[in-house]
């Protein structure tokens, strides 16, 4: 078939930021998958809670301190996180490098507190269904912190290489920021579930 040229794409940029980037949409789709997973895990918690005559089952409510501390650390981490996103948008390599180092440390902090959070649940995963579901909720969220931390560390290292100045990397940083916001946002209902529903 004869081709008839009706459009010239030559002036388009070689890379799209934000909604023009396919990885942005891919990250969003993965967040939807994981968000559904979190929602279902919370649904399992509510289902088992609804079924039980007493809740928590044969255990005191979890200690508030470590979980609340994690919550505060995660909420505080949003400040540098949003700043990193802004610097990435301005393609300010020096500040993004600094921000990524800060975010790497900010990602490690809640993991350290979380080491104390598991014992603070005051129930073992194999004691009863209540123990199983709170350990699973906490474990599921911890996996997400670890995953994003590894991503942040690798990306931080990448920013210090010759690939760091590439605008494409700033897009990666923004996607990483978005994902960390998601990790923080999903924690809030889980926190409410584990610590406050058990106190109703």
């Amino acid at each position: 078939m004869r081709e008839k040229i009706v459009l010239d794409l030559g002036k388009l940029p070689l890379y799209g930021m934000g909604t023009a980037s396919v990885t942005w949409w891919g990250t969003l789709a993965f967040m939807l998958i994981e968000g559904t997973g979190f929602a279902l895990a919370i649904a399992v918690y509510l289902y088992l809670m609804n079924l039980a005559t007493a809740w928590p089952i044969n255990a005191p409510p979890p200690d508030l301190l470590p979980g609340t501390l994690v919550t505060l650390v995660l909420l505080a981490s949003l400040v540098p996180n949003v700043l990193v996103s802004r610097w990435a948008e301005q393609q300010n390599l020096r500040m993004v490098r600094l921000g990524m180092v800060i975010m790497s440390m900010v990602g490690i902090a809640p993991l350290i507190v979380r080491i104390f959070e598991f014992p603070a649940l005051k129930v073992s995963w194999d004691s009863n269904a209540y123990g199983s579901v709170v350990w699973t909720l906490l474990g599921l969220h911890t996996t997400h912190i670890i995953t994003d931390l590894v991503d942040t560390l690798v990306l931080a290292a990448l920013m210090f290489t010759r690939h760091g100045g590439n605008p494409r990397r700033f897009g990666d940083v923004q996607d990483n920021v978005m994902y960390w916001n998601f990790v923080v946002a999903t924690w809030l209902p889980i926190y409410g579930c584990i610590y406050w529903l058990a106190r109703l």
Partner: protein
Amino acid sequence: MNRPVAAPDTRDIEIERKRLTDALAETWKTPSGIWGALATVDHKIIGRRYIVTAFVFLGLGGVLAALMRIQLAQPEARLLGPDRYNQIFTMHGANMMFLFAVPVMEAVAVYLVPLMVGTRNIAFPRLNAFSYWIYLAGGTLLWTAFALDMGPDVGWFAYVPLSGPQYGAGKRADIWAQMITFTEISALAVAVELVVTIFKQRTPGMTLDRIPVFVWAMLVTSFLVIMAMPAIVLASTSLILDRLVGTHFFNPAEGGDVLLWQHLFWFFGHPEVYIIFLPAAGMVSTMIEPFARRPAFGYLGLVMALIATGILAFGLWVHHMFVAGLPRLGDSFFTASSMAIAIPAGIQVFCWLATLWDGRLVFKTPLLFIIGFIVTFVIGGLTGVMVASVPFDTQVHDTYFVVAHFHYVLIGGAVFPLLAAIHYWFPKLTGRMLNEALGQWSFWLIFVGFNATFFPMHILGLEGMPRRVYTYQPDLPWHGLNLFISLSAVILIAGFLLFFINAFRSARVGEVARDNPWDAPTLEWATTSPPPSYNFPMIPVVGSLHPLWDDRDSLAVANGLRTDRRELVVTTLAAAEPQAREASPRNSIWPLWAAIATTIMLIWSMFSPWAVVWGSVPVAVALMGWFWPKGTPEDES
């Protein structure tokens, strides 16, 4: 920070045709040899592999079905013992659902969607390669276990407590649960690729109302996968945890609940039916046009019906649990919603009938399968409305009536359209036509064989024959019909054999296909059969839903893309206006390493929870290798 646009000589402007296609072929090629084959990220090669693998699993599942029919042909048969029979019906169901039906629909989409939306590769092509390897590993795991007499024996839905630690000794249930993890990872990966391809890589001008219906169907299906599959991942993971580390999700003695399993399973399992059916419906809406020689009637209705089905699909799951003793009000709600889903299905059927009514029909094999589909699917849909009623369902639950119903909707509703699709798109996939005479023979054998095999099962069910029994006594009144069914299955199998023979033969010596042998209106027919590695020498630009019908002499295209960089057009979500010349990743072996590392971790984790800790290290390393920039032109920005 943007670097200047590359030197003009690498763009496809004012360049002689031969030089253009040579340069594109060099940039997009899959090198020959084993390494090239393992590292390729070409959606067409991966899509073909996916399709062939899924059909191998169909054949294997068919062998299991044949074994069951031989066993049930007469009372007190001794071919299979109860344990082997349990493994075989479990393997048949799990294999057909997880290794054939869902993957084959996604596989066809992996091949076709990028072509139909006019782009050069699927979004996240390396993830696509990874998803295939993971799928292959999951299927191999299941079948290897079966060969070692370790096949799951707990039914395709693996109800607890039968599959739990108390009754499911050994590793059989774990094999089932971990096979789920493999297939869900691969299905979710493909769903993400398809959503992003359809959202962002549609060719300029392909606004929402110019998207082919099959592509719409795959978009809705992908969202169903994304929203439904986490439920089964959560279910199978908690089952493994119950079995491996002593959690109590499904143990009533410690506050767990066995019905929780059924809720989680069917919250996935019912949408699963539509994950299989919606692509098939989309295929029919797309294929019906060239064979009715007119646009499909009611485009908007067809698309809205797909979306409505997708939403309603999440409100039906409890109708699989009507005999589980749930509150009456819940039963009534789910009866109503189950009947409501007949409305969008009906809208589609009437649109297809209207299209055929007003069309000038071309009775080639694909159209025969489409008509066979409409007939069979309507019968299956009607028995679906019947079992949506609680009193009726209570009567026929766990009988052969249900077996008949779901084979009508799954084979009639999905496999018939799929076979139509294979006959229709075979020339695009292979460059050769399927033999028409053999195609028509296989249609009639399959159509007659199918109905003769499965229709009597309704009667057997009403006569009280339960599902999943390995034999029955001679004094029960089921013998005659069972023998008839088994003999009819021979016709059905002969039809499938003929189809496979036709496919093998035609792929090698079939008539050479033209670019658009059916005179079809959608973009995949605007390129050669089979398409080159870069799909289109120049990106098509569309101004209507039927670009190849509206202008038969010429194809509107865009220029300005580079030839030395894997480049494709990213467009806006609704209006499909060009936004960027985005890079598409090159071939890479890392997805294979990542898949191998993931496979080791998943299999190991059936035996030790520490596998998740230590096994994730190689996975992380492989992912770093995958994403680390290699300084190719694709990194430019």
